[in-house]
């Protein structure tokens, strides 16, 4: 590296290439690792090239720009969030399988180097939390919540674009780190002093810091956006006790995001000050104390797990009620429980470090507070069971996920209680028992919830149903794969196997790691089933089309509009007369009515702000990671200029004429009248055009 390129490239040089180390030290293990890392890097590069060629070939750049990238429509932003989450899910699942493969052969060695393994568990955790789970649930809330409360968009559509842009930038940084390595080996928690400059001066931790910072900024903005929208933009008559439960969980999640995300933004920013400007906030000397980081991290981290789980609870509430053909049991209890969980989630963070040496009384208090959360959660579980009780349960794909959730999640709750007892936690802390526990919460909880939600609302978003057979296969493979992959980790944890260990020297672990590998393979099959399901569904989209928009006999307002919904969602903002607003309309024969008049509709205009933030965010993070200061300054300058320029922008809305809305709506209503309603027994057949015959009380169907 000479001085003439140093200003340009910073500390980036050839050693960042994933195969460089193997060229320098061509041992067998290094070569194997270089092949794996280079393969992953070339997937990123080839994937990007394929997308560019594909878009150019089909001349879709303009379409992509106008219809998607600059669209302020909450529905399109939601879909883009979920698409991003699915891409990142694919990468992180492959990493998980690689880690299981390594540990299955990990007795006395294995095939991965310790550094490679360290990057795998760090990227896996970081991606799954910040770039899979967060965009997935943000996308879900984005898409569904405004439809459920009967509004046309979020309160701040451009800020919504910026949220997406920032998350996409963070994800891009993590993807770039595959090509220009390394990523951090400090785990998704990134505890100093290990992540300090003294122990880890390389670029890896900096990649992690900036990727996470981008993600937390994005989520804070999303939280504000969701909360304000729910507070201010509910349809007339949509009082608090009439909100669909998914919207309730969205509100609680949004509040948690507003309060829990900034501590992590601050923590990573302070860690960056330590690393870049030689502050001593979290170092071991000069008055620093890494315990402060750990407290800040979990002040974010524990509410975060409820950010992850609450939207899934909301989805399951909708799924149970819809597919049991029954009103939700204990709506008020469910709302109170959700609020209780949200509040309590801020009171338990210390249980993440019972072993850090604080007094027994403090540990006991936080252990008991943790168990307290078990009460509202348990109530929710029983409320869902009572929702199913005396219902008419259709075992559709979302119901399979939901049933799997119900039974597996309580096992995770059980092990959570075990971990919450400090005297027992001293034994299983930092072991694979812990890893098994939080995967047991997040896979049957969060991921099954999101996949159930995808199967549930996909026809709403795209106008055709997802194919059912492959959906069932995916669901069962997820359930079985999860059990085989993670139940053995409970045993390994009890046997004292630590998390994050590349290899081990205890033959007794081997049968368990091998079983876990079988489970991971089945999870990989489940992923394949999901891909096939999507492909088959797109292929048969005309057969499975359901333009009327209510394929499952839905209960809340999103089912009252066509599929896909018009960009303005509702031609006329609906009035709400009770809980389960659309079900009530249907029962009273008031659904699909012609409004008296069609006023003009004002919608937010397209804006490039999200794209600008995505590009400058990526550039700034990349420049900061590799010390390319010119790029940081340039990106910061462009961001600032764009924000100021936005302030001068006068054409922030556009108006749709009432006449045009009237024509579209009447065409759809004519289609509704011409469609034969379909009974629930034919729900999964091609007869289902999205107009249901509701089940009748007391009837045998």
């Amino acid at each position, binding site marked *: 590296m000479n001085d003439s390129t140093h200003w340009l490239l910073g500390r980036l040089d050839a050693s960042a290439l994933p195969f460089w180390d193997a060229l320098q030290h061509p041992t067998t293990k290094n070569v194997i690792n270089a092949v794996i890392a280079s393969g992953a890097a070339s997937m990123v590069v080839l994937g990007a090239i394929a997308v560019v060629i594909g878009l150019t070939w089909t001349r879709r750049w303009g379409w992509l720009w106008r219809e998607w990238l600059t669209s302020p429509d909450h529905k399109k932003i939601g879909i883009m969030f979920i698409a991003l989450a699915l891409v990142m899910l694919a990468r992180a699942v492959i990493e998980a399988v690689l880690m299981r493969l390594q540990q299955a052969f990990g007795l006395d060695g294995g095939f991965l180097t310790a550094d490679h393994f360290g990057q795998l568990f760090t990227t896996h955790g970081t991606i799954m939390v910040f770039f899979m789970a967060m965009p997935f649930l943000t996308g879900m809330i984005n898409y569904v919540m405004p439809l459920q409360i009967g509004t046309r968009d979020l309160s701040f559509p451009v800020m919504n674009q910026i949220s997406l842009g920032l998350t996409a930038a963070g994800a891009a940084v993590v993807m770039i780190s595959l090509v220009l390595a390394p990523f951090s080996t400090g785990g998704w928690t990134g505890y100093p002093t290990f992540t300090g400059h003294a122990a880890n001066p390389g670029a890896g931790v900096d990649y992690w810091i900036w990727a996470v910072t981008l993600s937390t900024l994005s989520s804070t903005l999303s939280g504000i956006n969701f909360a304000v929208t729910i507070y201010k933009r509910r349809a007339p008559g949509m009082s608090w006790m009439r909100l669909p439960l998914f919207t309730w969980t969205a509100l609680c999640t949004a509040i948690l995001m507003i309060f829990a995300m900034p501590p992590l933004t601050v923590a990573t920013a302070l860690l960056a000050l330590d690393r870049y400007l030689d502050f001593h906030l979290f170092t071991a000397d000069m008055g620093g104390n890494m315990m402060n980081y750990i407290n800040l991290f979990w002040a974010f981290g524990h509410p975060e797990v409820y950010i992850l789980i609450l939207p899934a609870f909301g989805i399951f509430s909708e799924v149970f009620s819809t597919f049991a053909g029954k009103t939700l049991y204990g709506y008020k209890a469910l709302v109170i429980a959700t609020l209780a969980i949200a509040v309590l989630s801020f009171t338990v963070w210390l249980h993440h470090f019972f072993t850090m040496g604080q007094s027994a009384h403090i540990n006991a208090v936080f252990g008991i507070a943790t168990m307290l959360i078990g009460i509202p959660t348990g109530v929710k579980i029983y409320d869902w069971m009572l929702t199913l009780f005396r219902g008419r349960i259709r075992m559709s794909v979302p119901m399979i996920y939901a049933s799997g959730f119900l039974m597996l999640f309580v096992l995770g709750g059980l092990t959570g209680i075990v971990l919450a007892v400090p*005297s027992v936690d*001293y*034994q299983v802390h930092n072991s694979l028992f812990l890893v098994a526990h939080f995967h047991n919460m997040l896979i049957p909880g969060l991921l099954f919830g999101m996949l159930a939600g995808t199967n549930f609302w996909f026809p709403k978003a795209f106008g055709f149903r997802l194919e059912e057979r492959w959906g069932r296969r995916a669901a069962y493979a997820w359930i079985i794969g999860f059990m085989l992959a993670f139940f053995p980790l409970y045993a390994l944890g009890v046997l004292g196997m630590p998390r994050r260990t590349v290899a081990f020297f205890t033959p007794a672990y081997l049968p368990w790691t091998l079983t876990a590998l079988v489970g991971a393979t089945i999870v990989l099959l489940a992923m394949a089933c999901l891909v096939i399901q999507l492909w088959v569904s797109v292929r048969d989209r005309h057969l499975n089309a359901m333009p009327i928009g209510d394929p499952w006999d839905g209960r809340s307002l999103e089912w009252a509009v066509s599929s896909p919904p018009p960009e303005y969602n509702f031609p006329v903002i609906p009035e709400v007369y009770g809980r389960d607003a659309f079900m009530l309309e249907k029962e009273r024969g008031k659904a699909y009515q012609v409004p008296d008049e069609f006023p003009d509709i004002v919608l937010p205009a397209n804006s490039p702000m999200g794209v600008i933030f995505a590009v400058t965010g990526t550039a700034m993070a990349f420049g900061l990671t590799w010390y390319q200061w010119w790029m940081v300054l340039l990106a910061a300058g462009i961001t600032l200029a764009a924000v100021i320029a936005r302030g001068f922008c006068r054409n922030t809305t556009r108006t749709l004429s009432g006449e045009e809305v009237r024509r579209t709506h009447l065409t759809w209503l004519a289609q509704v009248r011409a469609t034969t309603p379909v009974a629930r027994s034919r729900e999964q057949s091609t007869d289902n055009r999205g107009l249901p015959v509701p089940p009748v009380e007391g009837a045998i169907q």
Partner: protein
Amino acid sequence: MPLIAGCSDAHLSFLDPQGPIAAAQRQHFWWVIAITLTVVLPVLVLTPLILWRYRYGGRARYRPQWEFSLRADLAIWGIPLLVFAVLATLTWRSTIALDPYRPLVSDQPPLEVQVVGFDWQWLFLYPEQGIATVDELVIPAGRPVSLRLTSASVMQGFFVPALGSQIDVMNHMVTRLHLEADAPGVFPGRNMQYSGKEFYRQRFVTRALSADAFADFTHQVRAQGRSFTPEVFSLLMAKNTHAALARALDGTETAAITGRARQTDDAGSPADDSTPLRFKHFPSGLFEAIAAHRAPDWSQDTSSLSTTRPLSPDSLLPASSPLSIHPALAAAAPTGATP
């Protein structure tokens, strides 16, 4: 747990407890599971039944508007609340009883041991005995052990599952832990907190000896152990595995390993991990110096400490030493020449 009991690796887990703390933890573990199952089991049993009985096309009652029952609500709030109350009581008591900082009740005074976590070895200092060991904690069985712990590197987690709790080990800070072994035996221990690429090798063995054997062990080490020189200290501070450290101290690869961490690939065979590293003295106040970020004071060491028991000539001979009762220990007797 037959699968655990039947495995070849002895004393891996607190489910096979070898001390009073681990035994209490095993008991708590099963109690907590049993109590919590009272709310979990109904879900596991009733969910499939409900799914089947109220399936679409079945003939069970259908009440689409039914949304509340006071009795059901009392049960679903009341029973978890009751279970919570029981668990909370258990948690409060067990947490205070098993506080790692709480000295164990015993008619014998505890053995003081100071523990320093390095990358990637454990150094054990025995201030009363004046000896030090690396990756080998030797304790008398049936007598409490009082540990003070610090890290010379990043955060680590000190853990002997068969004996009791784990505790975090942090730079510039001292944590405490109390353990006890019921009977002589060998128990694996390790670092639980990821600390870099050789983290997975950062293991140690805990050997509990009878009181006599322990006394003999300390005398043997005082007589035959290695010297704790500044070179030893700088090798510990450099990032090394146990095997690399052992080779360096035995003079074979000194040049190769100081300064930089070695490649994982060509780190030595597993046998090297068991090379015993025992020191007949160490600088006085070494633990306090490390914890306070001071340089060790090399002018004074523990070799001047008075021993509590006269050295028997027999104990110097491995063949007739009580140490040979424990094959693992006999195999690990010092081999290399003392520097």
